[in-house]
């Protein structure tokens, strides 16, 4: 498909299961995608679809009750390919990668920062473990990072505690922390959900800049189709632990071929379409992960359900970039020709 060297991270058939109360929750159930350098991959889905677990799996930050059941996560580090899933969770190699090569921005900036350490200390921790800089250089680097993030008076702010930062500034401090070692891959797990739209715009501007300047590959996890339209180069739509549709932003947003993607796009009012636009709710709600439908997971909520949907559809490659997991994709794709 694409040039192999361009791919920063490649995930193949990843399965992460949770074991609680003698039950098994197949949170991520066979997910495959590639992330290219300097591109943004958006993973979209509703709560509980496994998008955050996918991110946590890549970072090996899973809780003890869960494990990677199957699959590969191949990370390309200086022409060497590392299989992340084979590394020990807290082993030396994984610790080397985590935070320096692959960094993560968490959803809630209010709880992700430690309230008893200064922001500067928390950013410098990363630099202390992953670089050979001395104390003075680390501090300078911290200040310049905060400055890059557009935090006013960084010399003063670096010694302040998280409580004196506003929500948007905390998220920027988190991004500074993630960017400290120039990671090759940045995973952002709903980075702006807790923030106001004007602050969200600031954060997006920042992420765009980082992508262009450092050629960072970004995995952006979100539930907002609007965010996808603005930022994504590639999109993967997840539902109940599977990717149901993937492709470039153009493919997925202009030619949605899976009924779930279509339904998601139709269920939100779009700004600028006025009062007469029609929104169509998706009927029902997401199924209980312990009591899943057999076959296609979306079938019970789908308007085009037939008997063939009792078998889980395979991933079909429609064209070079666009793939979908639905028995009846042809019927939808026909219309776009």
């Amino acid at each position, binding site marked *: 498909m694409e040039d192999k060297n361009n791919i920063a991270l490649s995930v193949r058939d990843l399965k992460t299961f949770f074991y609680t109360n003698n039950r098994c929750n197949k949170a991520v159930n066979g997910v495959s995608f590639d992330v290219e350098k300097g591109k943004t991959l958006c993973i979209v889905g*509703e*709560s509980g679809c496994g998008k955050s677990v996918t991110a946590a799996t890549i970072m090996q930050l899973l809780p003890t009750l869960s494990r990677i059941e199957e699959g590969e996560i191949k990370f390309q580090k200086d022409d060497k390919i590392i299989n992340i899933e084979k590394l020990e969770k807290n082993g030396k190699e994984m610790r080397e990668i985590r935070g320096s090569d692959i960094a993560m921005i968490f959803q809630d900036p209010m709880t992700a920062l430690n309230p008893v350490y200064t922001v500067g200390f928390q950013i410098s921790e990363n630099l202390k473990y992953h670089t050979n800089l001395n104390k003075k250089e680390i501090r300078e680097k911290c200040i310049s990072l905060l400055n890059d993030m557009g935090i*006013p008076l960084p010399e003063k702010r670096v010694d302040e505690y998280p409580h004196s930062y*506003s*929500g*948007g*500034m905390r998220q920027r401090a988190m991004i500074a922390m993630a960017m400290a070692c120039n990671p090759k891959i940045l995973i952002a797990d709903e980075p702006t959900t807790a923030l*106001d*739209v*004007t*602050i*969200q*715009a*600031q954060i*997006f*501007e920042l992420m765009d800049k980082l992508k262009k300047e450092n050629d960072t590959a970004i995995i952006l996890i979100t*539930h*907002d*189709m*609007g*965010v*996808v*339209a*603005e*930022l994504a180069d590639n999109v993967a739509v997840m539902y109940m632990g599977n990717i149901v549709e993937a492709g470039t*932003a*153009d493919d997925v*947003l*202009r030619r949605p071929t899976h009924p779930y993607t279509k*339904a*998601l*796009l139709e*269920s*939100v*009012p*779009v*700004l*600028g*379409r*006025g*009062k007469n*636009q029609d*929104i*169509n*709710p*998706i009927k029902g*709600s*997401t199924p209980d992960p312990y009591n899943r439908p057999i076959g296609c997971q979306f079938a019970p909520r789908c308007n085009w359900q037939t008997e063939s949907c009792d078998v889980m559809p395979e991933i079909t490659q429609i064209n070079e970039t666009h793939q979908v997991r639905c028995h009846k994709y042809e019927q939808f794709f026909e219309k776009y020709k």
Partner: protein
Amino acid sequence: MKKEILKLRGVKVHFPVQAGVFNRVVGHVLAVDGVDLAIFRGEVLGLAGESGCGKTTLGKAILRLVEPTDGEVKYISQDDDETELTSLEKKDMDPFRKKLQIVFQDPHSSLNPSFTIFGSLQDPLKKFGIKSKEERRKIIGDLLEAVNMRREYMDRYPHEFSGGQRQRIGIVRALCLEPELIVCDEAVSALDVSIQAQVLKLLMQLKKEKNLTYLFITHDLSVTEYLCDRIAVMYLGRIVELCDSEDLYNNTLHPYSEALISAIPVADLDKQTKRIVLEGDVPSPVNPPKGCPFHPRCPKATDICKTEVPTLKKYSTNGNEHYASCHLIDLPEIS
């Protein structure tokens, strides 16, 4: 002629900030700082703004869930009787509580977990004179069916329901006294997109059936555009723009509304616009900036903005009334 249901004049809600050993009052949070607003019967009025701009406080002040520090809230009944609500004694407020209801933001914390749904919802009916239990069960059962839930659900506990279902129960709670106005305080923000659409559709359907008026408080401007007839945009406790919802998007007058609209990610590849990125954060409402409260972040600010507070003036766009408070608007003012 449109008839008003509520008229606010100069509503202010100030919360004291206390500090020191003796809890001396050292300042005030100016949560709502002088709002004039009229809500017409049968309309959906959107109240939009960022967090901390006072939109929820204003919604609660109307129902006197927080006491306004100053100003008037007038309720106008169907027979044109005006009643000033803020000066009423607590118990005289009761008949108006029946007319004005609220749906709260967080469906997870607004239902008491130790009561069944019927247990929670029957209290207001009891208070307003429906003595027989059968009748109360019938009213609640009918309403549950009206929001597409099963009648039997009233004997279940809140933890048995999903977020979307709880929000619908919240709507039933607001509806059971047959109100005229419902304040929807971020009623769909906590829900997933697919569920959000269900609740939005339901609200619109109920409005038609029961002839309701909504004050729809939200930070999501794409929802307001879809739902509302008029929209008021708030910033730091004041209304900065108030107009028909179409005019807000097509003929934006205030630079803040403009930035707010441009910042919203649009799920349509053909409608991508340039983001206007505002500098910095919303200033603290304890110590708002002098002059126009928006001037430190405004890309168009001039000298006059730093000293003089703009007032809400009336303009006309597309033949509709359009209120905005900005010094830099180039339109003739209408008196």
